[in-house]
């Protein structure tokens, strides 16, 4: 209980009112006031333009206050973290899986695991509503939902020897609940992989420079892989630094490829060939030994990710650009060109990672609990790392809103909405009140070394333009704009590919596990035929979504990103259902709102969004309405014979998306009903509840032990 008292004393108040204490309170009150002032400035400013520094101040102050007060309350009162209790890493210390790890190092691991392309892409897309709704949701969602989920699931998993969310659902909710959670994880993974792959395709489409750079990361990774396996086993740092150096060189060298007509032709690919290339790559990375391709790419991506995020933060602080996007745009009414749908619920669906991401519950109940040194570290790692991810989301929002709104809409709108020719599109966008000329776009595309920037939905190119403008204001000016742009594209694509190949491999194991129940040999993870078949199944599944997105005339992001958001938020609802059940069993009924409120909010937004995506009468929102509209066109004979097959496939895809959304929503409803029955029984029963926690073992470690003593001293 020592930790509990330690972190709780700010709230409880012992009556001792020393000067030091008063000083501390004064500091925190001023942080809170500064944060409130900055938020007010962002929300109420209607001047010409707003300095981005206000976003940074508002976000950082809110995070500090949330961490100091709310996470302390969670740690002390709700969870009662106990540092006298030995963690799994102490009890099972085996040097491989269960490794006691220093708090800061583990924070780095955990953050590298949870932060992916999501917090960069989501806010960029949601910027079509204006900067305000997304920013507020990023900050409040993280403090009251996302961080809470990560923290509590991490705590639950620590108390259960690092069990996964599926296992916890099975043990604490019900057998069926566990099975549903497992299926939901697989389904969500498939959709997630399809959508992030689509972001890469849209970033590389007809861009020889970007395609060359990304293609070259594969031989570089192979080289690093061989080096780390045979030349200097396990010397990750030197191997990765070598690889990062080579990657920076190929980013630079990409311009020579783009400038040479014959080479440019080789690397200029359309959407469909790129989609297939990515599928082949992910299949290979999943089926080949990990050390050869997957792991070294992951190392490179981790280093570049850390570097790029620091660079973005430094760039925003140094340049403090002006935010040109208005706080709210006309598109809150649901007519947005980037994706259709009203601000409620679609703003909260589009920004999943950064505010709350169900996928994090897989990380919080995976490797991290097995490495944590003390229970009290869960606050810093679970709650703190998510705050940092939310900050990445706010920076992405700033980068997207710092460019001219007209340019933002030009990059992210499909031609079916704004018009097929540059002049028509520029006229449409100017008509919305965001002045733009076709020359501006042509000039910008030339400056960043691209053939075109029209219709590049997916968030990556617009974020890259935003980042490139910020970076080039720091170093290099106009001259280096194209290098910065391709650096940004490369790093986004690089860590999306990392999600893709790692996700495909994990998905492969899930498929093998499920298949192994039907036919034993299929489940053997080392068997070559099983590896090939299961890899093909998982790649085929997400590849289908990817292909469907690439050929979608409305721009696949419009239909697929909300599907991804819905599934991610549904997984978060699952995690919060599990957390609520465990808290009820622990007798924390009084504070059950901590998880119950975010859970209710998630259920409301996901169910509303699912309903609208399936049944809405607007064909841009409702899958079925779009299918029916297309079918009506066929019956009316408006579709030329050459496009008949294509249109029929489009109809099928829309119905498939509707069915997938419905199945996901139904699964979660079943799980919630299961849980409600459980909760009713728990609250009505006078008997002590059976928790499946590991038994209490007192720690043997000295009080100040931080894991560093294991190090080089």
């Amino acid at each position, binding site marked *: 209980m020592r930790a509990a008292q330690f972190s709780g004393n700010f709230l409880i108040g012992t009556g001792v009112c020393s000067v030091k204490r008063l000083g501390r309170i004064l500091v925190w009150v001023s942080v809170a006031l500064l944060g409130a002032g900055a938020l007010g400035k962002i929300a109420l400013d209607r001047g010409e333009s707003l300095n981005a520094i206000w976003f940074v101040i508002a976000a950082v102050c809110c995070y500090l206050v949330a961490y100091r007060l709310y996470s302390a309350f969670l740690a002390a009162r709700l969870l009662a973290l106990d540092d006298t209790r030995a963690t799994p890493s102490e009890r099972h210390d085996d040097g491989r899986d269960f490794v006691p790890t220093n708090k800061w190092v583990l924070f*780095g691991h955990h953050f*590298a695991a949870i932060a992916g392309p999501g917090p960069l892409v989501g806010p960029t897309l949601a910027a079509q509503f204006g900067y305000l709704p997304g920013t507020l949701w990023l900050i409040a969602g993280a403090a009251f939902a996302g961080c809470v989920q990560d923290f509590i699931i991490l705590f639950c998993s620590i108390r259960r020897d690092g069990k996964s969310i599926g296992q916890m659902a099975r043990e604490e909710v019900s057998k069926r609940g566990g099975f549903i959670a497992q299926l939901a994880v697989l389904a969500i993974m498939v959709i997630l992989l399809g959508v992030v792959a689509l972001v890469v395709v849209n970033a590389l489409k007809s861009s020889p420079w970007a395609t060359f750079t990304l293609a070259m990361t594969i031989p570089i990774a192979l080289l690093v892989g061989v080096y780390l396996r045979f030349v200097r086993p396990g010397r990750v740092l030197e191997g990765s630094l070598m690889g990062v150096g080579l990657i920076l060189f190929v980013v630079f060298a990409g311009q020579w490829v783009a400038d040479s007509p014959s080479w440019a032709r080789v690397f200029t690919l359309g959407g469909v060939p790129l989609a297939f290339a990515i599928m082949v790559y992910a299949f290979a990375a999943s089926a080949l030994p990990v050390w050869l391709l997957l792991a070294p790419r992951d190392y490179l991506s981790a280093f570049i990710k850390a570097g790029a995020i620091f660079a973005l933060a430094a760039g925003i602080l140094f340049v403090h650009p002006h935010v040109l996007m208005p706080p709210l745009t006309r598109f809150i009414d649901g007519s947005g060109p980037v994706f259709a749908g009203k601000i409620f619920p679609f703003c909260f669906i589009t920004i999943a990672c950064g505010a709350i991401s169900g996928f994090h519950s897989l990380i919080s109940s995976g490797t991290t609990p097995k490495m944590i040194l003390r229970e009290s570290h869960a606050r810093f790692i679970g709650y703190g790392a998510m705050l940092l991810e939310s900050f990445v989301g706010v920076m992405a929002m700033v980068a997207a809103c710092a460019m001219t709104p007209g340019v933002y809409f030009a990059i992210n709108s499909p031609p079916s909405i704004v018009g097929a020719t540059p002049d028509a599109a520029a006229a449409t966008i100017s008509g919305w009140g965001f002045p733009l000329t076709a020359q501006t776009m042509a000039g910008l595309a030339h400056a960043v070394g691209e053939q075109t920037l029209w219709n590049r939905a997916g968030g990556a190119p617009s974020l890259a333009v935003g980042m490139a403008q910020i970076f080039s204001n720091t170093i290099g000016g106009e001259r280096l704009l194209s290098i910065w742009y391709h650096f940004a594209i490369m790093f986004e694509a690089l860590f999306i590919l990392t999600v893709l190949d790692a996700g495909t491999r994990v998905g492969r194991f899930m498929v093998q596990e499920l298949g192994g129940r039907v036919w034993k040999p299929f489940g053997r993870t080392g068997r070559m035929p099983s590896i090939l078949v299961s890899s093909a199944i998982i790649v085929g599944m997400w590849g289908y979504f990817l292909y469907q997105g690439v050929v979608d005339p409305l721009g696949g992001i419009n239909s697929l990103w909300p599907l991804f958001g819905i599934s991610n938020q549904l997984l978060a609802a699952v995690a919060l259902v599990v957390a609520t059940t465990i808290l009820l069993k622990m007798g924390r009924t009084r504070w059950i709102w901590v998880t119950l409120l975010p859970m209710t909010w998630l259920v409301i937004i996901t169910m509303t969004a699912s309903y609208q995506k399936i049944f809405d009468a607007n064909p841009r929102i409702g899958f079925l309405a779009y299918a029916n509209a297309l079918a009506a066109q066929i019956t009316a004979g408006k579709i030329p014979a050459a496009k008949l097959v294509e249109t029929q496939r489009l109809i099928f895809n829309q119905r498939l998306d509707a069915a997938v959304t419905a199945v996901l929503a139904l699964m979660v409803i079943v799980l919630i009903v299961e849980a409600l029955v459980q909760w009713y029984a728990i609250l009505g029963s006078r008997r002590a509840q059976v928790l499946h926690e590991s038994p209490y073992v007192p720690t043997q470690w000295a009080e100040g032990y931080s894991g560093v003593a294991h190090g080089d001293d």
Partner: protein
Amino acid sequence: MQKAARNIRRLARRFWRGLREWCGDAAYERYLRSSAGQSEGYPRLSAQEFYVEQLNQRYSRPNRCC
């Protein structure tokens, strides 16, 4: 002044050690010191074997997120 220099050196050393831990450079050394690396019963893994085994394990469960 000397004290400040010492503090900076200590901080830099700590950062370096943390970086090696974070990226996996120090994993094998840690394994050798842990009970599994010390125990008589099991054959101790070589640096190469350990590296490959670690990777296989790490990439068999969700460890990269959106």
